[in-house]
């Protein structure tokens, strides 16, 4: 079973590297942040799989913190950083 967990985790890591293309190429900043959000979720899945494969239960807590704080960057991006093309930023 450990081999299956590690294999699926490796596959998900390859998915992250594939999604990096969208960060590099994405035309608008929103595309880049969407890719970063997907990386966060994939990282949670990888951490859960590694917690089972390496028999390290502390990694589930790391995954929990990731899940809690994954939305923080997106919220900061939308509320404070991104002013879409035609919108006048009123601050």
């Amino acid at each position, binding site marked *: *079973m450990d081999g299956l967990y590690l294999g699926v985790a490796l596959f*998900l890591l390859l998915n992250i590297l*594939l*999604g990096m293309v969208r960060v590099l190429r994405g035309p608008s900043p929103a595309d880049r942040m969407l890719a970063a959000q997907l990386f966060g979720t994939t990282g949670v899945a990888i951490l859960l799989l590694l917690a089972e494969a390496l028999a390290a239960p502390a990694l589930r807590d790391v995954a929990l913190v990731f899940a809690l704080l994954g*939305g923080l960057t*997106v919220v900061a991006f939308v509320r404070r950083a991104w002013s879409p093309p035609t919108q006048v930023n009123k601050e």
Partner: protein
Amino acid sequence: MGIIEWVTTIFLLAGAFFFFAGTLGLLRFPDVYNRLHALTKADNVGLGLITIGLMLQVDNWVLALKLLLIWFLVLLTSATAAHLIANAALRGGLPLWRRP
């Protein structure tokens, strides 16, 4: 390998497939809104299937509850993020993609 192991294997492979589909959609779709669609599928269904597959393997119901809590938090986060980005893009006048 018992029946539980087979079910776990199937769930994990299905979750990995959903993550792959989400990444592929992020790469192939033409528009922020379409990419949001692909992304939320990967977040909700992919992580959900992997979580269910792992929940079948733990022997303590507190650990299963913790996995469920992680999935619930990711659901909440991803729904909030998708709504915020779609709302900001629509209000800011980012054009919708039309089939050319």
